[in-house]
């Protein structure tokens, strides 16, 4: 229990002394405790926080434990939090009613506190084990379907080294997607997207988005209009009117590489500014786009721009997982912090391969899926 992030418990009891006792015992056992002296106070806390488990007294004035449980069950976001009753009574009727309300168990109040703690620990262990098994089942199914939102490797392009790094948060696929589309012999499209949201739900939608992006790129090329801004606007129009994607928004960075002229054209949709490392000036500069998140407005205000990479220059596209980090006070988003880290890495002449190793070492501080694509111009166009 003491390892990793502490489990959070909401303790609800109108007896201040017993509440204090429980608080001390659970804190000692490594829990992060929140105490509430009434069911109403507990519900207020649950409006803002979601503990791992709730332990509630039955007999309380105004709203008793059963009424509290019923209120919790009414809330979609709270109903699956494991709930245990604490009762001073051994009234069988109360216990049966409690169990009917999907309370996982009950504990008689005169049970030694150490035993209550052990019981909660066992319960959480079982719940987590079940959750892990469910996730394992989904992961097995996904592996069997062989569908991926991130390719195995980057394409080889004359004059460039293209590489990327991607990690799922907590080993569960999320909303980041990467693709490299060789539209024809001349153009390569580099795509980095991030569905707003997390875990399986976001992951599920990556395939719809990827299908739209791939189709729009192919249609544009076959229609002799390969403008990246136009491609984004076409995708945006479809997504904006797609009822199935209502409220599912995504950022996308889209780059077209002309392999013949080595020119880059970029358009973005609600994406973080790219970072362009000028090897001659030893400077890392932001490259910002104008476009809004896909699906947000019918006109996404997409524009495109040329990016000129000189020999040795590098261009970085990345998702917000790399700028969202865990700090002592909680979590924060800090684009400048990430840009600073990248600058130091580039100034010390380290390769992207080495930067990927650094990112691997920082996995514990990440709070979201994280992806970065590096395009390094190695040879100037003849």
């Amino acid at each position, binding site marked *: 229990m003491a390892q990793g992030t502490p489990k959070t418990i909401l303790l609800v009891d109108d007896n201040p002394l017993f509440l204090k006792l429980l608080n001390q015992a659970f804190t000692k056992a490594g829990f992060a405790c929140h105490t509430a002296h009434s069911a109403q106070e507990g519900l207020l806390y649950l409006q803002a926080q979601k503990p791992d488990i709730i332990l509630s007294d039955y007999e309380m004035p105004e709203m008793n434990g059963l009424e509290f449980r019923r209120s919790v069950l009414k809330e979609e976001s709270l109903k699956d939090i494991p709930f245990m009753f604490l009762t001073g009574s051994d009234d069988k009727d109360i216990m049966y009613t409690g169990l009917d309300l999907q309370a996982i168990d009950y504990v008689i109040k005169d049970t030694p506190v150490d035993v209550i703690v052990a019981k909660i620990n066992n319960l959480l262990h079982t719940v987590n084990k079940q959750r892990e098994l469910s996730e394992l089942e989904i992961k097995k199914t996904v592996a069997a379907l062989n569908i991926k939102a991130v390719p195995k490797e980057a394409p080889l392009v004359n004059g460039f080294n293209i590489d990327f790094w991607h990690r799922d948060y907590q080993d569960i696929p999320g909303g980041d997607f990467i693709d490299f589309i060789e539209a024809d012999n001349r153009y390569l499209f580099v795509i980095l997207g991030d569905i707003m949201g997390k875990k399986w739900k976001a992951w599920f939608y990556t395939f719809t988005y990827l299908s739209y992006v791939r189709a729009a790129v192919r249609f544009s090329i076959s229609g002799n209009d390969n403008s990246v801004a136009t491609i984004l606007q076409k995708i945006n129009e479809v997504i904006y009117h797609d009822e199935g994607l209502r409220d599912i928004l995504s950022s996308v960075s889209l780059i077209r590489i002309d392999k013949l002229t080595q020119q880059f054209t970029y358009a973005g949709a609600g994406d973080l500014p790219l970072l362009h490392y000028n090897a001659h000036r030893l400077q890392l500069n932001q490259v910002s786009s104008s476009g809004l*998140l896909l699906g947000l407005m019918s006109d996404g205000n997409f524009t495109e721009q040329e990016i000129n990479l000189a020999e040795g220059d590098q261009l970085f596209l990345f998702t917000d997982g790399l700028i969202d980090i865990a700090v002592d006070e*909680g*979590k924060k*988003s800090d*684009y400048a912090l990430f840009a600073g880290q990248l600058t130091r890495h580039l100034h010390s002449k380290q390769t992207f391969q080495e930067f990927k190793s650094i990112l691997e070492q920082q996995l514990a501080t990440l709070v979201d899926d994280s992806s970065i694509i590096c395009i390094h111009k190695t040879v100037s166009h003849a």
Partner: protein
Amino acid sequence: MLNLIKEETNHILVKVNLTEANLSHSHHFKNELIALLNFKKRSVWLDLQTVTYVDSSFLGALVAALKHAIAMKCDVVLLGLQKDIDDMLKLIRLDKVFKIYSNEQDAQNAIG
């Protein structure tokens, strides 16, 4: 999570009682905000001064509520954003779709 502070003719002022606004709140937050918009039929000014971090799920919920508000010819206005969050919204151009003010008074002066 949402506390109705006051009601004006054209808008309501609502305080968001969160510090870290993330996936665990986003669904509930979106439903509550949309229910408020439907019930009050007025723009919602959200006081976010206690929020220190928003993840992409929560941003998605905010944007979904804004889309809903626009469809009913109302608005979702953001007040009291902390610097990190304000910076983040600017980086991804959400400042182009949300009206953002440092406090209620500034919002009153601009659009009240």
